[in-house]
């Protein structure tokens, strides 16, 4: 008897597990399955195809004559090279990825494999960072490290006189720093998975087999975590290449341009955007991302080899760090510090009538006026909260059920062409947020059907965006359900609808919750798509914060950020708790063998 079972589905759904052989339910295709397949494929294509097509068409046609042309690329290339946009993009993304990967992986290892203290605190703060909109966290850093009024700068320069020149977060260095911190949290959450599921006896065997602790770490632990590590690294690189918030808030004022912000500036900030050129930029960005995605794909494919959990001998033997334990503890504390510090700063600023550096004397002017103002101002903030809940909740709900059905079709049936579902669903991974936003905009802007200008266009764009990840989380979920459980439902006389309602959905609950949570949070914290597709009455909360910031209402922006942080923080932890609780129940029910 084998005790290996599928790795638990995790928060991010980024890691897929294919170690389990796929069993088909029926040898013949059922008509219901064909119909379901047709509907799902049409749905997926509808999400993915229009934005991609409109981008490609716009990039290669002349706006006036509608003829095939490469002029757009020819025009933008010199600018790109001259302004250093491409090199900036690469330097920014690669540095942030390398730093966050090293930092996050070491933290994950310390938290899962050693007896370093503060594990829980690191986990909680990393999750908080993952759940909160990037805009909020970046604003916090501006308050801390802004060149003129940054709190840390004021201490280091004026109070203590340590520095002669203030640090400037609105520079390439600052951008890398902030992006790296944001991604460290994500890398940490992702790397915890392989370290946790690693069989402790593999390390113990190494120690009994005469390896020193360092040797066991290098020759066994690290190698075992490597496939998962590659996958995490590549996905973070992809995401950093397309990152928008940090380059927009820190890079644009500081004159550091990357591809994503160039697209935005050309589209948003000019009266008559040159769509051809914007599309050309977008396609360039996609071309940079594609090879990395291929590497990511390769890395996740081989991953099933290593990440096995054995049912027997559940020992959580952690490496005893001995006298280095407290040094490790201090290192562990650095992440909560850099995550919580900007948030505290936001709270401070939100209490001030105008921006002031924290001091005893300023404390006297603290009040809740900014919060009252949020509710006062024609209640448009409440509209934004409602729109965010509607768009994020709606897209997550539809998507989670559609992808669950799609995964079931791919794994359990023999419908011809079923892998097309898998293929279409990964395409959005290659499309940067800002590019996707632009694509969706052009695909629907001229249509007679009123989609543009409603919340529906946002829902469409976000479903396309979250498609790859919900698909993945459901994929592992369906794989982990043993085929016999479904077969017995059929034998007991259930039809397809009953199978889904009474067997699959309950068993899939943890995967569904994980996928939903991921899709919801990703949508609620996203900025570029929300910016490009906003319309009157459909302004997502991240857009609202951005707008307040843009017009200089710093304290109001801070107050709104605090409110959103509290709401999303609570929601994130509730969802996390739910998927944990039901995860355990359903994992037991799914009949691990």
């Amino acid at each position, binding site marked *: 008897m084998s005790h290996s079972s599928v790795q638990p589905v995790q928060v991010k759904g980024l890691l897929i597990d294919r170690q389990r052989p796929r069993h088909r339910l029926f040898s013949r295709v059922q008509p219901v399955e064909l119909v379901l397949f047709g509907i799902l494929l049409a749905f997926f294509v509808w999400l993915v195809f229009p934005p991609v097509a409109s981008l490609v068409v716009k990039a290669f046609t002349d706006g006036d004559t509608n003829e095939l042309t490469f002029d757009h690329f020819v025009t933008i290339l010199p600018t790109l090279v001259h302004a250093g946009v491409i090199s900036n993009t690469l330097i920014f993304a690669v540095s942030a990825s390398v730093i966050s990967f090293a930092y996050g992986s070491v933290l994950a290892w310390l938290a899962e494999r050693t007896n370093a203290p503060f594990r829980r605190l690191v986990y909680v703060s990393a999750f908080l960072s993952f759940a909160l909109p990037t805009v909020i966290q970046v604003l916090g850093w501006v308050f801390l490290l802004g060149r003129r009024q940054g709190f840390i700068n004021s201490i280091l320069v004026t109070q203590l006189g340590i520095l002669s020149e203030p640090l400037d977060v609105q520079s390439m260095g600052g951008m890398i720093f902030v992006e790296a911190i944001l991604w460290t949290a994500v890398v940490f959450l992702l790397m915890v998975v392989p370290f946790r599921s690693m*069989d402790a*006896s*593999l390390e*113990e*065997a190494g*120690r*009994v*087999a005469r390896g*020193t602790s360092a040797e066991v770490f290098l020759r066994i632990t690290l190698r075992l975590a490597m496939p998962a590590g590659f996958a995490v690294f590549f996905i973070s690189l992809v995401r950093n290449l397309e990152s928008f918030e940090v380059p927009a808030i820190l890079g644009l004022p500081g004159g550091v341009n990357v591809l994503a912000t160039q697209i935005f500036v050309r589209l948003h900030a000019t009266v008559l955007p040159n769509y051809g050129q914007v599309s050309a930029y977008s396609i360039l960005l996609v071309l940079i991302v594609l090879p990395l995605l291929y590497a990511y794909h390769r890395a996740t494919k081989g991953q099933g*080899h290593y990440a096995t959990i054995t049912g027997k001998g559940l020992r959580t033997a952690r490496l005893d760090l001995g006298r280095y334990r407290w040094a490790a503890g201090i290192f562990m504390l650095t992440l909560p510090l850099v995550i919580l510090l900007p948030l505290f700063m936001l709270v401070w600023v939100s209490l001030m009538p105008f921006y002031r550096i924290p001091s005893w004397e300023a404390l006297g002017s603290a009040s809740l006026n900014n919060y009252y103002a949020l509710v006062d101002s024609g209640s448009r903030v409440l509209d934004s909260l409602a729109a965010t809940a509607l768009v994020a909740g709606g897209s997550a709900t539809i998507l989670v059920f559609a992808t669950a059905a799609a995964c079931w079709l791919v794994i359990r049936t023999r419908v011809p062409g079923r892998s097309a579902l898998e293929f279409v669903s990964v395409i959005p991974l290659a499309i940067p947020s800002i590019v996707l936003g632009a694509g969706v905009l052009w695909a629907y802007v001229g249509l007679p059907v009123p989609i543009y200008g409603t919340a529906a266009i946002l829902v469409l764009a976000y479903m396309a965006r979250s498609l790859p990840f919900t698909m993945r989380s459901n994929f592992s979920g369906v794989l982990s359900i043993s085929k016999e459980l479904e077969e017995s439902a059929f034998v007991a006389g259930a039809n397809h609808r009953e199978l889904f309602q009474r067997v699959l959905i309950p068993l899939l609950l943890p995967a569904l919750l994980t996928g939903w949570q991921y899709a919801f949070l990703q949508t609620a914290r996203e900025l570029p798509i929300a910016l490009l597709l906003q319309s009157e009455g459909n302004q997502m909360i991240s857009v609202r914060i951005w707008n307040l910031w843009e017009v200089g209402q710093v304290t109001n922006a801070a107050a709104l950020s605090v409110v959103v942080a509290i709401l999303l923080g609570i929601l994130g932890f509730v969802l996390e708790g739910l998927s944990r609780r039901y995860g355990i129940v359903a994992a037991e029910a799914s009949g691990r063998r």
Partner: protein
Amino acid sequence: MTRTGESTLVVRALNKHYGAFHAVRGVNFDIREGELYTLLGPSGCGKSTTLRCVAGLEHIDGGDIAIAGTVVDSSAPPVFMPPNKRDIGMVFQNYGIWPHMSVFDNVAFPITVWRSKVSRREVVRRTEEALAAVKLDHLSGRRGTELSGGQQQRVALARALVARPKLLLLDEPLSNLDATLRESMRMELRRLQKNVGITTLFVTHDQTEALSMSDRVAVMREGVIIQEDAPQEIYSKPSDLYVAGFLGRVNCFAAKVNTVHRDYVSVQVGSGTLHARSQRAMHEGARVVLAVRPEKMSLRQGESSAVNSLPGVVAEVSFIGEAVDYRLLVDGTSVIVRENARVIFPVGTSVRIEFDVDDGLLYEDEVAAAKVSQVSAVDPADGKLETPRTTDTPTTTPMRNQQFSLRKTATIGQST
């Protein structure tokens, strides 16, 4: 520097807590050079914990451990030698084969660690030798994940032996194999251990493994070693009912001591008188339990001249090939007898059940009663054998109800 006859492993007053839970409570034992010593006990009794303490994978809370004359663990003065310096080999329950290395690299690991001074050529030679010893030389290029359970087990064994350690630790190495493979691996493991001559500490919850492989067996319960002896000794002279039941099935009769002549004791069972030898002093009139193993009893039709003889009626026959298991009713109580299959007495036959004086085991009742109560239906209070309630439905679990065994697995089909 071990001399022949000196103990390779010495464990003294070993104590280990997990939080408030006292997992190992003052365990003492010695393993002589070349010996295979087994810790046998039910799940959760602390066998693995003891083994892991010896390996250095757990920090002990009290006591001393010495391997080959070197103190590796001690509570006062505090000594702790890490596992990599203890000169041991270990096979884990799930083998712990590294999936990212080939079979060769797995096995070669202990002699290619940084501080190992074995030359490259020597590494190859010794690894191949170790692989040949477990008959896996043809698979050395395979990945760790591309092996069957039995092959993984051999790789783990080769890896444990390649550095020629002083002590080999085996944690239920056979429990993940299927029944037939387990049986052949049992003999092979024993042969290999004897050939290499390596001192071995073996942990199992399977009494057949323990009895068939070991030089000496220690039965553990709740973190304590209850009895330690050679397999035949411990099987035929268990020190208490718990040990007796753990090593195999026994029939228990509530009895009262009639007369005592040195170690020769006659007891009153129901309306009859039986005789047995006792290892302990017995008082006349004391309530005791008489225990007899099913295979030590035999059946006969007609008159019996044996010292111990009980009248019974065959209630159930189960033919298992090499033997026959009978359930008989004696005074309305079930008794299980295992006989060879030459003659089969049909259900309803009246027979005499006989056993040798030396095969009757006597235990004091006070202690026994408490332990027996859940597993056996003997009711010592009224001094009469009582039929277990479960015999109402004999078809579901034909002959298991009366058997005195704490193990979860069925003993009926076990080979003897």
